[in-house]
């Protein structure tokens, strides 16, 4: 922005930058949330569950979403599965704008784009239907022709082929949850959302269930988002997104080093307007409150508690 050159006005410069702008935010992402807001409002009382959440997930990714309870994980999942309507912002899945959809579109979306499982094992399956019938239920609800073979294939893929003729009562919790994943996959969705799929299970069974999700991700190329508390699950995905107070706060990326070691690197999330959530233990350790001082260094930005920094001056 050197002022010595030709008289280029600020406005012109802005226009020029707009012309030069690369692809729009999240273009090409399979799942996009931009500044997503969800406010529950009943009888004049408001609860803000999502307060400007940003999230980008590519096609075929397997992502875990973690966060304390009440952070908005389940709300996010309900929005993405088309069960809940966000209040503001942008939510786009497989190119479909979740805010602009009519009720009919949303129904079609639920029938063909997403599949999901709830945390409570019992809630996912109808107790009086067999596993196979449960898998075929969404197919029937979508008004498609049922293929028994398809249901059996899915159950086989998820390792519960033997349970096809059993009702949920006759299955273990892990089997039920894997059947639930099969139900979620029944309509060949592009995205599967799982809310705490291993929440009610022991670690060994959790491993099986998560294995099933991973199988779906690899074999069928489905984008999978898992909301979890389970550290075991969190360490087995390539990317873990942390949510705090209705916003994405951190991301952990895992890669396998050349030595075959898994290296996890945790990042804080910087949003499009430059906002950053500092981890709470960092801020409390340094007694940072209300104001901090920032300093731009050559390769990083320093953050100092307000009082300390002032004292240095």
């Amino acid at each position, binding site marked *: 922005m050197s002022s010595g050159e030709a008289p280029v006005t600020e406005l012109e410069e802005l226009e020029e930058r707009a012309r030069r702008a690369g692809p729009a935010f999240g273009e090409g992402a399979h799942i996009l949330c931009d500044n997503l807001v969800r406010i529950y409002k009943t*009888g004049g*009382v408001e*609860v803000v569950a999502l307060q400007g959440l940003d999230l980008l997930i590519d096609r075929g990714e397997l992502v875990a979403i973690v966060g304390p309870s009440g952070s908005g994980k389940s709300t996010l999942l309900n929005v993405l599965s088309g069960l*809940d309507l966000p209040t503001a912002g942008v939510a786009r899945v497989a190119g479909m704008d979740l805010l602009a959809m009519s009720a009919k579109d949303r129904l079609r979306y639920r029938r063909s784009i997403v599949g999901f499982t709830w945390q409570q094992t*019992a809630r996912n399956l109808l*107790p*009086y239907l067999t596993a196979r019938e449960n898998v075929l239920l969404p197919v029937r*609800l979508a008004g498609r022709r049922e293929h028994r073979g398809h249901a059996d294939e899915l159950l086989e893929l998820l390792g519960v082929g033997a349970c096809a003729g059993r009702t949920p009562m006759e299955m273990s919790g892990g089997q039920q949850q894997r059947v639930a994943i099969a*139900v979620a996959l029944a*309509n060949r969705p592009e995205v599967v959302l799982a809310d705490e799929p291993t929440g009610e299970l022991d670690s060994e069974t959790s491993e099986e269930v998560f294995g099933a999700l991973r199988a779906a991700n690899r074999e069928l190329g489905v984008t999978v988002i898992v909301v979890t508390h389970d550290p075991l699950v969190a360490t087995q995905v390539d990317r873990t997104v942390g949510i705090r107070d209705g916003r994405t706060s951190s991301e952990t990326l895992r890669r396998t080093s050349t030595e075959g070691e898994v290296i996890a690197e945790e990042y804080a999330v910087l949003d499009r307007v430059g906002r950053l959530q500092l981890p709470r233990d960092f801020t409390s350790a340094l007694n940072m409150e209300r104001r901090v001082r920032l300093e731009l260094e050559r390769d990083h930005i320093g953050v100092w508690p307000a009082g300390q920094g002032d004292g240095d001056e």
Partner: protein
Amino acid sequence: MPFTLLRAHRGTAAVLAVLAFSAALLLAALPRAFERAYDGALGRVLAGGGADLTDLTVELRAHPLDPPLTDPGQFAAFDARVRKALPPALRTVVVPGGTGHHGAWTYGTPVTGRVGERMWTGQFFDLAWLTGADRRVRYVEGAAPGPAGHVTLGGRDVVRYDVGVIREAASMMGLRVGTTLLLGPKGALAARVTGFYELTDPKDPFWDHNRGVTHVDVRHVGTSDQFWVTALTGPDALRFLKPDLDLRYTWVLGVDRTALTAGTAGDAAAAVDRYDRLLAGWSSGHSSYTLHTSLPLMLGGFLKQLATAGTLVLVVLGGLVLVAVGVVALAARLLTDRMAPALSLMRARGGGLARVAATGAAVAALAAVPAALLGYAAAFLVPGPLTPAAVLGPPVPALAAVAYPAVRLALTLRRPLRERRADVAARPSPRRVVAEVTVVVLALAGAYLLRTRGLADPSSGRADPFLMAVPAALTVAAALVTLRLYPYPLRLALRLAGRRRVVAFLGLARASGGGTAAPLPVLVLLPALAVAVFGSVVSGAIGETQQAAAWRQVGASARIEAETDIPPAAAARVRALPGVEEVLPVAEGVTHIGPGYRAVRVVAVDLAAYRRMTGGTPLTVPAPPDGTSGSAVPALVSPSLAGLGTFEIGWPVRRTVVARGTVGGLPGLAPAADEIVVVPYSVATRTGTAPFATMLLVRGDASRAALTAAVDTPQTLVVTVADAFGSITGGPMTGVVLAAFAVVTAALAAYALVAVVLALVAGAADRARALAYLRTLGLSRRQARGLTVVEIAPLIVLASLAGLLLGLALPAAVAPGVDLSPYAGQPVEGFPITVGTPALLAGGLAAAAVLGALAYATAGRAVTGVLRLGESA
């Protein structure tokens, strides 16, 4: 899918099915049974009178200037004509044959002599030719009358008829076969007795029209007796019967009483009136046709009773519909709640709203509709005619069973995910408040309109549908108000209960929290109570009115009335009867007073004694007039006579009386329509003799037979309150109304219990969770039971209280349609309301409901089961 869901929730579905069945059965069977009872009551009303009262009799008095009917063919032709002219409503009722017949008869034909025999005085010998009579008599002596002929008597040629007479006339009137009587003022014709007959069937209603043919009527005139009989003669006699014998021609149209039903009674009565006007327009020369029948009168009286009964039954059935719908909806709600997880999963997994709601409704329909059809079919086992109510009623609960889940699911599943957030409290929406206020205002406006405008047509014998809508709307309004207001008294009770008594505190807190405040149980309990209380109030009012009416008819415990003086000895005998506490002599007669020489009834009675005597009875007797004014007798007079001031009476002695006050009437002592003068009993003396009595009023319980025996005076009438009450309550319609109340009250009580248990079951999961939590904190099993009862009891008690109040208020609301006069046999003003029985009823029903809750709470359920229930629900 519906079948799978039905199988999965078969228990709840069975409850719904049973309720739909019972509701359809009741709503289809009760109107039929009531209609049948109405028909039965009409049948008994009509059977109370002879065929001459119910049949239509067209009469023509022969006129001297008109040509007489001399040929049976003329009668038959006219018979066909009158039948053809019948209004359509009467064509099914008037049947050929039966008691129908026609003929000619003379009236009051004196016997003026006998041929060759000694003359008997005081004999009247009417002649009648009646079609069908010869088939109904059997000659036991002599033979049937032959053709008419002539005899020559003293140089005169006189027409001689052959006649047959009832057998008893032979001895009573000194007749034998061959006796020839000279008849008519001038002895212008002769009647030869050719035979004596007996009736083949004395009970044949045919004879109701021709009583003179069946027996010799003895009439006491002064000191002598008169003997009246009607003799049967042949068709040949028609040629010689002359109008100067007071000759009448009649055509009797037999009415089939069984063809008259409560439903057609109104039309038939109107048709008879129309027919009467039509016949009056026909004339035959100088005389005109008249229609004689008491049918409209009898039907009118019945229709008045029917209107009241119809109103009461309609209100009661309306309550039953409301309650049945409420209970069925409660069961449907339970079923919907049970299906909700599956259906919301279906909705979330891509089920369309219409499809998911239809699935839920289909499950309810599979349970309720066949059951309702079965109930409707079962109702055909109950004999009775099909009425609109019996057809329109049964589908209502079935419809409710299907509509409730459909609407509820459509509302709750409109959004695929309906997550209640505990941190967001719900508040009543303004729309709902406005809707509720609208219902309340509409109900009150309806009640106001009903009271001010009255009914569309109270005489039609059928109740106004508006009348049914108003109590139902009032009930719904009362339920809404109760639901809105009931937390407030509970919060007050909560404050009073304090925090020391943990069970009471927790129970009231849960109750007032609204967790269990399902509106449906209130919607069931409240109308159930209201209708039960209403029924009890009306039954009580009918009973009380009838009791009062019986007293008003008699005037004392018993009344002995004689045509002549009652001897003092007879009075003494009555006084000596066991059970008789007091006997009051009364003299009553008619005198003519004033310039108009108007007839007034004078009652000489000791009012002070009469007042003492009637203490504690429904009768009120005015106080005696005070003071005397010289020789004038102080008297109470009818208001219309009050202007006369001082006037003279001629009975029982000529005295001057002075009006000292007015009296509305003396029930039992004087007909209500008469103008009366009440004078002290001391006036009742025949000149120079001891006081006399024409009437004895008795206090105490002595039977009519005992009193009649004690009086032992001819021509006395003895009436007792017990007899009068018996004849009033024996009215056929009273039983129908009381039975209706009893049946419906029983059904309502059963439904109320079912509603309470269903409400408990519906809230079971929530309650079980709370109890499981409290149990882990140290609540004992006993306290847990107590908690359940304390939680549910306030709702029951408050709903019962509201129901009681509504039930007491309903009679006032429907008063324009409920006239108890037809049941009391005299006009009744107002509506006596007693609180005792209804309050007991309400208390009993509430207690039964609470006990039901207790029984439910006590029914053993293991703690672990409760805990599991708490987790999985």
